[in-house]
């Protein structure tokens, strides 16, 4: 049987482990990965549980095809209830951990309760052991991975772990694996830390048996050939996701100084380009499991306290994040990135928090009494980065405030001004990216309605940047969508389509960057149906897969309604996006900000397409149609 991966429920309070198979009817509803993760969170999380404590759950979910021959099927979902937002925690990680988890016979781990002393899980060939991790507590994420490999005498073991940020219950802490990969957003490392779970080590020799091996192999090869023919695959194979930076920076679609300007204000923009990285730091480029694109940069730090250290990454998003608050060269950005990786901190969330606090400092809302004597001027970014990162990881001083994320910062600092909420930019409590959203209604709607809060990986509808013929967009989205990225027309349809599509991708376990995310020529529903058929013998039509995406997205919405009490008010981008236009950039960008009336109309359309009422609550009819009226069903 190709689908032999089990769900293991590990109760760290009682020390009990139960293993269960996944019924096929549940597969047909949720596939795996993010879908079954949402199901498991909804079923296992005690309603309204505290995010830091034994009642929260950490759910690790490999995609249904993770570890298979499907191209770039490397992904794992990490989630629970977010200590950053109070809503769903959900983060997707690449690398090699997920495939190894599958080879060890497991697809989902539900970790509940809390241990009294530090532990790690040793998952291997159908077995799970809870092992003492006292000797690992206090180690960084690189040391931890290596120490476990040495202890278990197997260099092929893959380890996911937290750093000291997770140990210290920093809400922006993440779960990491390898030199680069992270379940970065929504505080998965904090959930693990609160359970005294330092790491999960996996090693499997059970393999995966495709239903139709020859066809699976042939189709994978055909798909790879097509993927590698695209312009975007070639670009990614050299520049990684950073290939986007030059385009967004040229257009005026990057924000600096917390969104005060869209023109690089910290020196010469050439120093920030990927070309400069190639010249000065690149030592190679690597790939995640079964990926032919190879977009993971490799580098060595040249100077500073960590000179000589090897690292991988960063992605475009992190390059953008560190640049937005004043780091103006690769040496400083790579140091910040590497420190975050050692401590186990979400770089996107941390940089958002830092630039927000820096603007409060710039405006005199907070001073050195609040910052513990640190000068948080933009021009001082290089000096403060290592110190702020350390304070965050240790949960001390101003770092303890930053590490709580947007909601914690607002709660802590609003006593100094009623404007704090305006300058700390977030959606649903998750920090906004460094991209300009205010001129792109589709991007704004996407980050605002994203179930996990401000984030592009839930719905980023980048295709309206390519000026594709509108017939192409209509064919793709099933209705009229404007190809002008500043237009509101059809963008609710576009965002919803991407939300559901990326939910399907995350259920399958392949990389989003090898989907329609970047190009309409990359794999989509038809190809996924074939991958699923040849690898699992399960047949799905495009419509059935799309409905699974709808079910998963709606269930995540239900988790947010139950746990965080979200309403329509939580589906808006930061207020600044409605009030301030940018001075610079190309003509389509200059002076534009969101129009509230048009945004409201777009949001109404979006709810209607989803089958939710005008407060964003799924209707009974929708729940019934998607068979969500039976949840929580406790089938597994």
């Amino acid at each position, binding site marked *: 049987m190709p689908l032999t991966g089990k769900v293991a429920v590990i109760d760290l309070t009682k020390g009990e482990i139960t293993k269960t198979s996944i019924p096929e009817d549940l597969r047909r509803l949720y596939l795996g990965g993010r879908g079954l993760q949402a199901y498991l969170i909804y079923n296992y999380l005690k309603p309204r549980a505290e995010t830091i404590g034994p009642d929260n759950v950490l759910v690790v979910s490999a995609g249904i095809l993770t570890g298979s021959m499907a191209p770039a099927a490397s992904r794992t979902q990490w989630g629970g209830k977010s200590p950053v937002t109070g809503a769903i925690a959900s983060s997707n990680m690449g690398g090699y951990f997920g495939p190894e988890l599958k080879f060890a016979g497991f697809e989902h781990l539900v970790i509940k309760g809390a241990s009294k002393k530090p532990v790690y899980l040793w998952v291997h060939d159908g077995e799970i052991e809870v092992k003492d991790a006292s000797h690992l507590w206090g180690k960084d994420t690189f040391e931890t991975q290596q120490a476990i490999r040495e202890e278990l005498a197997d260099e092929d073991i893959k380890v996911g772990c937290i750093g000291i940020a997770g140990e210290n219950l920093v809400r922006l802490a993440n779960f990491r694996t390898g030199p680069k990969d992270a379940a970065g957003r929504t505080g998965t490392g904090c959930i693990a830390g609160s359970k005294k779970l330092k790491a999960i080590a996996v090693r499997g020799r059970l393999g995966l048996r495709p239903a139709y091996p020859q066809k699976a192999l042939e189709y994978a090869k055909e798909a790879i050939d097509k993927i590698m023919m695209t312009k975007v695959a070639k670009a990614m194979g*050299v520049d990684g996701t950073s290939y986007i930076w030059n385009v967004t920076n040229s257009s005026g679609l990057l924000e600096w100084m917390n969104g005060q300007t869209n023109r690089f204000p910290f020196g010469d923009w050439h120093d920030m380009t990927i*070309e400069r990285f190639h010249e000065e730091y690149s030592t190679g480029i690597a790939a995640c499991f079964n990926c032919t694109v190879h977009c993971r940069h490799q580098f060595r730090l040249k100077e500073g306290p960590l000179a000589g250290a090897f690292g991988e990454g960063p992605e475009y998003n992190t390059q953008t994040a560190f640049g937005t608050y004043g780091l103006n060269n690769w040496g400083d950005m790579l140091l910040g990135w590497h420190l975050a990786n050692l401590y186990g901190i979400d770089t996107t969330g941390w940089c958002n928090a830092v630039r927000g606090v820096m603007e409060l400092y710039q405006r005199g809302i907070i001073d050195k009494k609040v910052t513990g004597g640190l000068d948080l001027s933009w021009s001082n970014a290089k000096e403060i980065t290592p110190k702020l990162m350390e304070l965050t990881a240790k949960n001390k001083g101003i770092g303890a405030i930053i590490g709580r994320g947007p909601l914690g910062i607002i709660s802590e600092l609003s006593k100094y001004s009623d404007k704090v909420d305006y300058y700390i930019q977030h959606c649903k409590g998750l920090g906004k990216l460094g991209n300009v959203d205010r001129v792109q209604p589709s991007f704004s709607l996407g980050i605002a309605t994203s179930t996990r809060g401000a984030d592009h990986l839930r719905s980023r509808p980048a295709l309206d940047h390519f000026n594709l013929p509108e017939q192409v967009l209509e064919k793709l989205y099933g209705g009229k969508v404007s190809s002008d990225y500043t237009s509101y027309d059809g963008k609710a349809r576009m965002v919803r389509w991407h939300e559901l599509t990326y939910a399907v991708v995350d259920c399958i376990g392949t990389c989003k960057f090898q989907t329609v995310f970047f190009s309409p020529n990359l794999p989509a529903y038809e190809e996924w149906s074939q991958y699923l058929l040849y690898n699992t013998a399960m047949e799905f039509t495009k419509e059935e897969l799309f409905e699974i995406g709808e079910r998963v997205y709606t269930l995540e919405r239900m988790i947010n309604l139950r746990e965080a009490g979200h309403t329509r008010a939580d589906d808006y981008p930061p207020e600044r996006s409605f009030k301030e236009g940018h001075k610079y950039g190309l003509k389509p960008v200059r002076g534009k900000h969101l129009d509230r009336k048009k945004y409201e109309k777009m949001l109404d359309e979006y709810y209607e397409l989803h089958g939710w009422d005008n407060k964003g609550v799924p209707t009974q009819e929708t729940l019934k149609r998607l068979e969500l009226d039976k949840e929580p069903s406790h089938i597994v």
Partner: protein
Amino acid sequence: MFKAISGRKQPRDRTLRCLNCFARMDIPQRAERYTCAKCNTEYEIGWRSGQAKILGLVNYYKD
């Protein structure tokens, strides 16, 4: 089996879109600068494995 929506057969390695007006720009081999014929936006051009790419705007800092 594997269908491309746009139906395009070959990638256009030297063709870029103007970021301002979206006109196609056919970049001469190894050119380091190029001005969009339609809107006059001037770009710094780089090359990646034979593919042209936009590095930035020549007049990035000009108001």
